[in-house]
């Protein structure tokens, strides 16, 4: 069941890593975002996919049959939000660095 999504996670990781190694700031940050998404999806797949029901308790007070595992979802939520904080901060830092004279690619950051 997780076959396709596993491949998708791999793709996302590959793309993210490729971008992380880029000389361009914008691509670098996009790489960070994609890696963040990829790890989220990784946890999701590692926690097994259940496609029938969302983890909500029904009106009768019982959980539905075959519902998705809420734990990875909660973890991903937390990780995503944390990731967002870090991405936003990184974005601004990178922009600030870009404002430094004579810096327009990552290679200029020597020293």
């Amino acid at each position, binding site marked *: 069941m997780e076959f396709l999504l596993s491949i998708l996670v791999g793709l996302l990781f590959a793309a993210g890593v490729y971008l992380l190694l880029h000389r361009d700031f914008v691509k670098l940050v996009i790489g960070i975002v994609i890696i963040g998404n990829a790890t989220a999806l*990784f*946890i999701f797949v590692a926690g097994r996919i259940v496609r029938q029901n969302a983890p909500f308790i029904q009106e009768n007070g019982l959980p539905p049959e075959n519902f998705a595992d809420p734990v990875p979802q909660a973890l991903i939520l937390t990780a995503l939000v944390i990731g967002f*904080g870090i991405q936003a901060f990184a974005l601004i830092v990178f922009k600030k660095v870009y404002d430094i004279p004579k810096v327009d690619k990552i290679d200029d950051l020597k020293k």
Partner: protein
Amino acid sequence: MGYEKIIILLTLIIPMLTAIISLFFKKNRIVNNYISIIGSSLLLITTTAFLFPLIVENEILTTQVGGWKAPFGITIVADMFSAIMLVIASFVGLMVNIYALENIDYKKKEFSFFVFFQFLMMAVNGAFLAGDIFNLYVWFEVMLISSFVLLVLGNGTKQLIATVKYTLLSFIASAFLLVGVGMIYGISGSLNMADVALYFREHPNEPLMTVAAVLFMLPFAIKAALFPLYFWLPDSYHTPKISVTAIFSGLLTKVGVYALIRCFTLIFIHDVHYTHTILMVAAGFTMLSGVFGALSKVNMRRILSFHIVSQVGYMVLGLALFTPLAIAGAIFYIIQHILAKTNLFLITGVVEKIKGTSNLKGVSGLYHRFPVFSIIFLVVALSLAGLPPLSGFWAKFILIKAGFEQQEYLMIFVVLITGLLTLFSMMKIWVNAFWGKQQEEPDRNLITNEKSLFKEHWSLLIPIILMASFTLFIGLFSMPLMKYATIAAEQLMNPLQYIEAVLGTAN
């Protein structure tokens, strides 16, 4: 549920409340200073006067956040190792806090310096207490984001560049740590460290366990600055204000080491031959590479930064040797390293204050005018270099003894060479900065003699003196620390005790 559980949680609540309160008063200079100092002092009192005796009495204390029982809620665990780390972290925190009163300018305080500082302390404490791998990850992230901000606060060009490097490499570490956490959940269906450890005890043949171990090891290794993943450290530690470097040097990498020790004595202990060999090789290279890096530098800050790397190697070596004695040695090493290294950075800050630079080419002859200050440096530097009977010696000695018991002769050789080269570069600082011709001071420098240094800049010197005396104390009277380090190591090497304390004997 007695008051002892409250005590454990206070180590998180106090810094957090301090941060929140100073957020409310962030415009008020004086109030801001006092709030932070009070918070740090309260934290220190909590850890030393209440938490530590409790742990001595009760061995391992746990509390369940939200009141949900063990593997389901988040567990907070304090064993001897955590308790020692908490005590030392809060002590260093208070010292740096006092130092920062003068060292950090008003503008940075207005931009919530102390808020970040307190959040950092909270995250560090949280990481020391986490009994849940995802929770550990969360504390790591809180620590990282606070350290990013502390590093960049002031927007200097060098700071910005350093922050970019630090941010990106830390991000990679966090991402793969998260992958590791996901993997652990995917394998064991649990996040509680004790529960995961129990799972691996019951399923020792789980093929992915070693992979998960490596996936945990690498991010922690990045954070602990192990070879060859320590790039971020020497490239960033020389850029921010010295208080920031000092608290980083004391706590950041050590949290990485703590996490390594915790995970690789509790969870990943079924393939020791493989995992701990990797750790040992890494430790050896880290020691050498770091110390050679230090040799190549002429700036005090950079020299000291590289020494952090090299000394992290010692600590990890203790873990890699994997005997109670070796781990006790590692713990001893961590403590003495935190005390000495933080202090050396603080001293460097004073040198910068006096001479305007920490580059050895621009500093000389300090011993002539500042003899007492110089002697303090010498004592701390020699402690770090491990001269008997100073604190570093004991740590080194224990590791050598443990190494002989494990017959890791190559490692002992590396330890010895590193020790000698550490002395070499400590003396390089001494010979160049403290000895030599006394320079004529340019007008802008106000501090020309020791009297004015001690009188007018007491808030810089009090932490230095206190920490130096503490360093001296644990060197001359190594028994108490040795005793607790041994207890901690025995607890660590006996994970069942931890598992039982968390999950209860029924499980």
